């Protein structure tokens, strides 16, 4: 049995307590351990992605109990791509946190960071719905600690709101799981795929309620309108690097929707038909519109970036809601792009804070390091808005191309194109106010010039921007790979048979059946 699959979860789970117990008062050792942990995570994730690239589905049975009785971890193309993305994002966020000294402004940043990575990895790898809930809670409780890192009244208040909203979401998740278990008697995803397909039209009330509840839960995580209210204030008030790490958390919701609604409730399933096309697609279009209007309306840079994350999630959800192979492939490309672009923008917003009293979109005197920050903002904004030459443009083209045969194609194209224009205006206005007009404002008398952000901070942001550039240059191969992922998702038979037919301990040998 391949034990490597469990490592992305176990490694951070070991590094975090070690940091707390052994290196509690030594920030330098914590930094080294944390960075080494994330580097090892990238190596493992890359290895797993390499192994899954040819379409093999690898299974890990915890305690060697066979599914559906034991809990399983499953590494297929989709899961390994997501853990690789998370690990790479984690590295740059960690470098920024070290470079900007955010990790010194409160205690246990690195331990919480590792627990957060553990929750994210687990959520992507697990093959069991209840286990997905548990890993959601792991990543959430770490995110509560990170969210209020370094304190402050306003941050605490936003944190309370964030925790309460997510507690309600978790309760809803449990209601959905209870309903699914009552209807089918299993919570293993592969087993559910078979059992749900056997439910006939007459007795499908319970499972239909469960599928809607589950969609609501994942929509809360993905911040789909009208369940997006938690996002702007909590992301805007979180410390810069934490908000950048949170950029991947909305994608966990997107991932869960892709996984559950291709495997358990596939689009051709009679009893849940209409859920995607009638409800999810319009909600996604409204999300995109609201997000980009929010970009235009925002009066602070951090809120502007938070709204652009909502808007980009709307774009992802439009592509997901098509539920065609091309749609999912485009959505996955856009997920990679918007995670990196959103994280870069949150880090740049934090860079722009140095030397300023706040991030209000008003002209303030030039600060040290502003030209480089402005250049990076320019590049990241181009990527997020989706102008050529960066990857937002290619991603948007893929989504427009995938939706060409959809019944609502006119609406989708109109929403995507108009929303892009609105966000372009919003970002251009913000950039010119923050960076351009700064030259016109003389610095106040006798003010001490603020020191520019450290080189390591710039390296971290530059690394994210370089990844965006690479994603653009390699758009062809990446899109071919996401298409292969989508193909695997729409042919789940190997996934199901790998999970259910691999024998574990106490299994009856095949010949005795």
């Amino acid at each position, binding site marked *: 049995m391949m034990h490597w699959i469990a490592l992305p979860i176990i490694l951070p789970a070991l590094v975090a307590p070690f940091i707390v117990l052994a290196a509690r008062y030594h920030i330098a050792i914590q930094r080294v351990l944390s960075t080494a942990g994330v580097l090892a995570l990238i190596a493992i994730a890359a290895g797993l992605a390499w192994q899954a690239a040819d379409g093999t589905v690898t299974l890990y049975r915890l305690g060697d109990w066979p599914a559906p009785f034991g809990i399983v971890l499953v590494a297929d193309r989709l899961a390994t791509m997501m853990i690789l993305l998370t690990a790479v994002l984690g590295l740059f966020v960690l470098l920024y946190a070290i470079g900007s000294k955010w990790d010194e402004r409160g205690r246990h940043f690195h331990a919480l960071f590792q627990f957060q990575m553990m929750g994210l990895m687990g959520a992507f790898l697990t093959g069991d719905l209840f286990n997905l809930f548990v890993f959601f809670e792991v990543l959430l409780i770490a995110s509560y600690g990170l969210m*209020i890192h370094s304190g402050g009244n306003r941050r605490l208040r936003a944190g*309370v*709101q964030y*925790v*309460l909203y997510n*507690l309600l979401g978790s309760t809803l998740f449990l209601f959905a799981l*209870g309903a699914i278990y009552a209807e089918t008697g299993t919570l293993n995803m592969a087993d559910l795929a078979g059992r749900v397909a056997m439910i006939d039209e007459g007795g499908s009330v319970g499972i239909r309620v469960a599928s809607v509840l589950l969609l609501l839960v994942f929509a809360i995580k993905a911040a789909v309108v009208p369940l997006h209210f938690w996002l702007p204030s909590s992301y805007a008030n979180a410390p810069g690097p934490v908000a950048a790490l949170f950029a991947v958390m909305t994608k966990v919701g997107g991932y869960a929707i892709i996984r559950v609604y291709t495997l358990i409730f596939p689009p051709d399933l009679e009893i849940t038909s209409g859920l995607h096309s009638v409800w999810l697609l319009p909600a996604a279009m409204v999300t995109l519109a609201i997000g980009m209007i929010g970009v235009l309306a925002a009066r602070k840079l951090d809120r502007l970036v938070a709204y652009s994350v909502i808007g980009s999630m709307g774009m992802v959800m439009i592509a997901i809601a098509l539920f065609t192979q091309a749609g999912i492939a485009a959505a996955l490309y856009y997920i990679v792009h918007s995670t990196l672009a959103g994280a870069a923008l949150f880090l740049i917003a934090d860079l722009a804070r140095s030397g300023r*009293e706040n991030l209000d979109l008003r002209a303030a005197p030039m600060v040290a390091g502003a030209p480089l920050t402005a250049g990076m903002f320019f590049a990241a904004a181009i990527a997020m808005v989706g102008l050529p030459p960066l990857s937002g443009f290619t991603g948007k083209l893929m989504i427009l191309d995938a939706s060409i045969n959809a019944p609502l194609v006119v609406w989708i194209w109109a929403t995507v194109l108009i929303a892009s224009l609105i966000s372009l205006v919003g970002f251009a206005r913000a950039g010119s106010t923050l960076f351009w007009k700064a030259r016109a404002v003389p610095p106040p008398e006798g003010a001490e010039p603020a020191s520019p952000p450290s080189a390591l901070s710039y390296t971290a942001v530059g690394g994210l921007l370089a990844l965006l550039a690479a994603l653009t240059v390699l758009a062809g191969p990446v899109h071919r790979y996401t298409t292969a992922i989508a193909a695997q998702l729409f042919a789940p038979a190997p996934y199901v048979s790998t999970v259910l037919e691999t024998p574990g301990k106490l299994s009856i040998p095949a010949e005795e059946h």
Partner: protein
Amino acid sequence: MELLVASAIGILTAAGIYLVQRLRTFPVIIGVSLLTYAVNVFLFASGRLTIAAPPILNDAETYTDPLPQALVLTAIVISFGMTAVVVMMALGAYLGADDDHVNEPAESDPAKRRSQDREDAA
């Protein structure tokens, strides 16, 4: 029996949702706790209601589904921990700002907001 359990879940949920909508931290936390109690009973009932049967397969004719009990146990531990976290954070927010509303105050007073910014930066 079924009526009793079902109405208990319903009443707990209704009371929880009402309290959550009060939008001040204390009632909201009580409301969330009621909701988690409701969901615990709901999970418990999802394995069917069986009285006086062991939660394990043995020679007896009837048995109780053991899995929901394990799920409830996990859910109880998690919700307990989460509630503890939110109580601490809500206390901190209340003591810091002398205000227990969950929503952020309207940003109508720019001068007050800037002084808050300076306080946060310090």
